[in-house]
């Protein structure tokens, strides 16, 4: 048969593309900054576990509040934010710089499907780094307190609820930040400026009036925090939204951003000499 191949459904094509792009995102030289970011909390916590500075402090109470702070300050605001920026911007902009994006645009797939596949690939790649990372950090935080305290925390204490809250927050953060950076990669030739502005916007969350807080990712992520954070500069001066509303807000916002990306993909032009 001439003219290439059986007609297949969109879903298998989309999943194939997502699988290929997630592997590329994880195994290319552009993934190195993501692994370096992920190594930061792991190495700090591993050092802490080795030297056990709080081993004799009261049970698991100290790490519980510490991990709450650590997840929001370090994991979500730093590792997940910049990790997503690296992965999702490179899905388009990186391929443009590598001059390989055209291979995706000469496939028998609609542009919207190609970019949906790429986004899903980025999501899979990011989550396959961030979720194990979160679990690893959680484990290392509790390790200095001994296996007895750990098992009691995990199996009869707050462990499962905390883990569910943090992993949900990371899942939704990756979805939302990923959608934002992916869209930025499609619209902007120089993504550093929008990334910087977005970082400033997110960092300003505690100081924003409630109506503007609702337009930040970080504010919605606070709803999944199982441990209340202490007041201070991180204080959220508005009641956290219910988790279902935060989920709808983050997923809906991501969908809006991805709709803009889909619209942009139809008119995206490949001109490597200009990029």
């Amino acid at each position, binding site marked *: 048969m001439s*003219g*290439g191949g059986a007609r297949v459904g969109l879903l298998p094509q989309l999943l194939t593309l997502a699988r290929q792009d997630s592997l590329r995102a994880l195994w*290319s030289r552009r993934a190195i900054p993501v692994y370096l970011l992920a190594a930061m909390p792991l190495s700090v916590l591993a050092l802490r576990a080795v030297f056990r500075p709080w081993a004799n402090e009261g049970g698991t109470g100290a790490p519980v509040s510490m991990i709450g702070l650590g997840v929001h300050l370090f994991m979500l605001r730093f590792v997940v934010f910049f990790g997503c920026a690296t992965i999702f911007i490179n899905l388009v902009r990186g391929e443009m710089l590598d001059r390989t994006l055209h291979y995706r645009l*000469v*496939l028998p797939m609609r542009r919207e499907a190609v970019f949906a596949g790429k986004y899903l690939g980025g999501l899979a790649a990011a989550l396959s780094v961030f979720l194990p990372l979160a679990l690893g950090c959680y484990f290392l935080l509790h390790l200095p307190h001994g296996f007895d305290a750990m098992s009691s925390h995990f199996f009869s204490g707050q462990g499962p609820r905390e883990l569910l809250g943090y992993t949900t927050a990371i899942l939704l953060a990756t979805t939302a930040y990923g959608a934002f950076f992916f869209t930025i990669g499609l619209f902007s030739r120089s993504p550093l400026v929008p990334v910087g502005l977005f970082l400033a916007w997110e960092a300003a969350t505690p100081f924003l009036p409630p109506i503007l807080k609702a337009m930040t990712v970080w504010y919605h992520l606070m709803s999944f925090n199982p441990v209340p954070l202490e007041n201070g500069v991180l204080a959220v001066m508005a009641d956290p939204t219910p988790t279902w509303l935060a989920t709808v807000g983050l997923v809906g916002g991501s969908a809006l951003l991805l709709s803009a990306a889909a619209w942009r993909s139809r008119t995206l032009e490949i*001109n*490597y000499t*200009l990029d």
Partner: protein
Amino acid sequence: MTSTPDTTISFDDVSKFYGEVLGINHVTLRIPPGLTGLVGPNGSGKSTLLNLLAGLIQPTAGEIHVLGLPPSRPNEFFRQVGYCTQYDSFSDGATGWSFLLDTLSLHGLGRREREDRAWASLDQVGLREAAKRKIAGYSKGMRQRIKLAQAICHDPQVLVLDEPLNGLDPIARTEMIDSMKEFASKGRHVLVSSHILHEVDLISDQVILMHGGSVVAEGEIRSVRGEITSHPVQVLIRSDNPHTIAAEAFRLDHVVEARILEEEGTLLVRTRDADAFFDSLQTVVLENNIEIETVTPADDETVDAVYEYLIGPEGAGS
């Protein structure tokens, strides 16, 4: 009533501007199947034309169809079209084999068919032995050939190759040309761009000459040459009576010059209508009983010569 399938590549009054910079301007083309050379100096609009054809950029005005399909219908369009860019770029860590399989899996082929087609494409470009090696370790010629294999692996009807002969050594060049000719011999389209004019002359059934974003000539090289009435054809005639031929030639409207050269018995005639001149020459020879030794074009009908006539020596030399 059944309609005849469209077998051409068509550009209908297509223009492309990058902001205020002209890419191509009011291009109208009908390209039949076969090996078509797209030739012009750097910046003449060749890559813009090919990128428009592959749907990688959108025209500012006009319409493009390949076998009746617009690039805006990728599901059908890219089953018929294979595209090979001029850029030598591949994903990190890709092997020749994975490069082809990744493409074929996105064309929706089953595992067995994917592998069969990948091997067939690798055989066509002579890369079977190197299939499992990383592309990063390939030579320039091998990288060009693996790109060709990727462009043909889904068995398209139209193959678009942007500067495929760039940087190839003579052996790799011959192999690449053979692969293109074999593909075109099956009644398919091969559209090849090059800024090296004699290459296109050697391989093409027809040429499209571009300059400054416009098509300056198109067709078979000889017919393109014939269409250039503004620039005379030069003919060398060796005979035993060049003076009589020269005198008769001056009577013809289309002859702009007739000059007897130092070489004995040789006459150079420049005419705007070669066919009419040859008819008249036959009459003169018969009426005057002149013995003709040879009649040859003074400027060989290569695309270089055509191009030089069309856009001047600077453009042709670039």
